[in-house]
């Protein structure tokens, strides 16, 4: 066997091993959250999700009341044939037959347990977290006349529809505008083209936070504050610089010959754009769409400012913030909430990934 072959095999082993480790590091937290989302609240706060795996645990086989036995915890004691002080028993003393004698609790009210190590799993699963996230929480009020009334909280439906209503146009509009702009910057010659493009790229470094107050003022003047139109425009504006830049990079690398032959055949700019450029740049469009969709779907601040925190227009991110309670006492619901809010972005990603991959392959084998 040649050493080159062996080295090659070793190399692939190394690469595969590294990939496996990266995948594990990447997925284990997600898996942990997924498992936690099915656990009951008290379990989540007291033990880790890995306790669903089989593990060895000390379990009591016998309980001894030290006071009934007349034991004095201030002195050396003999319990079940084992000698030790209170401190030693608190940590657990192992008896010769493999059992453990442990003092549970303090000197006053503590009990002594004879424990045995057994294999166990804690499979106490519930759908309650998902029920509360999707169907809404319920709140109890004790009225002055002593009756207890349960007031239902909001469910997820409205937040989900609102988020869709915000996200889809906020993704589609900037793509449409940016594709036109990128084409113009790449293939049309007009005075000041270079400077205008530099201006657009420069916009990339402007943080959107500084635009919040002036935008809000303008929206108030236009009386569109707190409407969907306002947030569509805001997201379009904030996303446009990156979209134009990304699409320009792609569109400007399209083969010049193809476009020129179309022009020679008498095609107008519009024909070239719709019949040639757009179909050829599907991978770039799709990758930007994924970016923009995820960004808008996960956005909290922009929606808060321009939709005004109105419960009527509540988005999924705001719903998640509300569900944990004012001081975060219901944080265990975030596990289920994370998976519910993750469903759609995942679907978008896998849906568009098809174009993404196909687009990258297209052209790679042509001369």
């Amino acid at each position, binding site marked *: 066997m040649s050493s080159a072959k062996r080295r090659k095999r070793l190399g692939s082993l190394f690469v595969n091993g590294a990939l496996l480790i990266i995948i594990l590091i990447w997925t284990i937290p997600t898996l942990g959250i997924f498992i936690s989302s099915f656990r009951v609240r008290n379990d989540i706060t007291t033990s880790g999700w890995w306790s669903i795996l089989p593990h060895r645990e000390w379990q009591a086989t016998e309980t001894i009341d030290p006071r009934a036995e007349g034991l004095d915890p201030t002195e050396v004691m003999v319990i079940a044939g084992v000698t030790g002080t209170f401190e030693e028993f608190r940590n657990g003393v192992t008896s010769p037959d493999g059992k453990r004698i442990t003092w*549970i609790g303090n*000197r006053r*009210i503590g009990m002594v347990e004879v424990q045995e190590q057994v294999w166990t799993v804690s499979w106490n699963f519930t759908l309650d977290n998902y029920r509360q996230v999707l169907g809404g929480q319920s709140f109890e*009020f004790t009225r002055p006349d002593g009756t207890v009334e349960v007031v239902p909280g909001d469910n997820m439906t409205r937040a989900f529809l609102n988020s869709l209503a915000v996200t889809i146009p906020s993704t589609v509009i900037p793509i449409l505008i940016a594709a036109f702009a990128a084409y113009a910057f790449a293939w049309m010659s007009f005075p000041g083209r270079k400077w205008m493009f530099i201006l657009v790229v420069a916009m990339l470094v402007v943080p959107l936070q500084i635009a919040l107050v002036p935008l809000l003022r303008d929206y108030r003047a236009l009386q569109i504050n707190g409407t969907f139109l306002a947030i569509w425009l805001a997201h379009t504006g904030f996303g446009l610089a990156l979209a134009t830049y990304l699409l320009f990079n792609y569109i400007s690398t399209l083969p010049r010959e193809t476009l020129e032959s179309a022009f020679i055949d008498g095609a107008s700019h519009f024909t070239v754009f719709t019949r040639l450029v757009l179909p050829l740049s599907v991978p770039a469009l799709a990758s930007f769409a994924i970016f923009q969709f995820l960004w808008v779907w996960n956005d909290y601040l922009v929606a808060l400012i321009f939709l*005004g925190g109105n*419960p009527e227009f509540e988005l999924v991110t705001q719903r998640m913030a509300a569900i944990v309670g004012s001081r975060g006492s219901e944080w265990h619901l975030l596990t289920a909430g994370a998976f519910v809010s993750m469903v759609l972005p995942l679907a978008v990603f896998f849906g568009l990934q098809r174009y993404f991959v196909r687009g990258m392959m297209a052209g790679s084998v042509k001369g």
Partner: protein
Amino acid sequence: MKIQHIMRVLSVLLILTLIIVACGGQQEATPVPATAPPAAATTAPQTGQETAEEQAEEMPEVPFDYPAGGYLERAIKGEFAGTTVTVDGAFEGNDVDGVKFSESVKAFEEATGITVNYIGNKEFEGSIAIRVGAGDAPDIVDFPQPGLFANFVRSGDVIPVTTFISDEWLSQQYNDGWREFNTVDGQEMGVMHRFSGKSLVWYPKAAWDAAGYEIPETWEELMALTEEIAADGDTAWCIGIESGAATGWVATDWTEEMMLRTTSLENYDAWVAGELPFDSPEVKNAIETWSELWFNDDYVLGGRSSIVSTFFGDAPGPMFADPPQCWLHKQANFITSFFPQGTEYGVDYDFFYLPPVDAAYGRPFLVAGDLMAMFNDRPEVRALMEYFTTPQSVSGWMEGGGAIAAHKTATREMYGSDLDWGVSELVNQATSFRFDGSDLMPGEVGAGSFWEQISSYVAGSIDLDTAMKAIDASWPR
């Protein structure tokens, strides 16, 4: 081919969105006709030129008191029916507190036909500044920090309540101490709404009774009890100060408690106002008093090193283990929402007043709470502000638990549980009470350097002198 496909998908999506938006619009529109009929019904008897007595006879029955001749009275007659008042605050519109708020204003909405639209969110401190700065101020703001409220008062954005609510009515509804919290530079600018009591120590009642521990009346007794529990083999206290970006606020609370208990109220007020520096013997003595307890590994579950990394909400959890792993936990009354499900007040847990250190300073009580401030002057906004001076405007919290009405006219029947009533009784028995100092200090300190430096001090990475000097240096002058 491909592009046609994409275009088709896009257009379908767009149409879908438009449908959703259209539906959303309808949903939004429905509440208006829903509130209109009672409005129309109540408008009918209003004729205008009548004597006060005749008006009083015609007034519809409402479940709350209102000042005579005020805007609330006119609102009950239906004068402002159909209008909307927007309220902003630091909790989400439909989380636990959001639901409690809407329960609280239900009586007002039913009696007046005015719609109360709550739009709060958790980024309140930032978003309210943006909104007011852009001229888009909400009508009424629910401030959890009087310090932040004072900033808006000084910038001239808040409309003083004394312009339309009489001093007589306010003194009838509030004890004097409470009115000081919403007074800025000598003028009463807002109204106190609700509060939570902080000087409370929680203990696992069932195990406590079984072990035969006694409730301590003085700081020495408390320390003796701590020592006794340690001698029995347990750690007495559960302490955790982790709270994300706000890590350290639990330690600032303890500092305030000790400031009230080891020095005079004048010194406390001077400290909060920035006149008494952190690097003074009084403040350092207060911090050292609790440090004695916190930094003894026999007294705190997990020892000093675990305090900074324990989430404040998870901290009391071990108290409910069987048998308890710790026996004492100091926290405001809202902590009960973090207690394990199924635990019951009076059975599984109970509370006592954090005892005084020095008898010379009486029995002070530390509170934190929310006040209401008016940003837009319209009659219906005035009516709602008047409603907030009644205990019924806190009914959601009184019946659902979690906060206590700041009004002295609140009664036992209004509360859904003995717990909240018990806390309000403790506050009434206190010889003095003060507002959470860190909420009154400038934001850079009260919600910044105080949290950070005290956390570093607890973690042991810097000493007390360094921490105090750093906080003093950050105070905006």
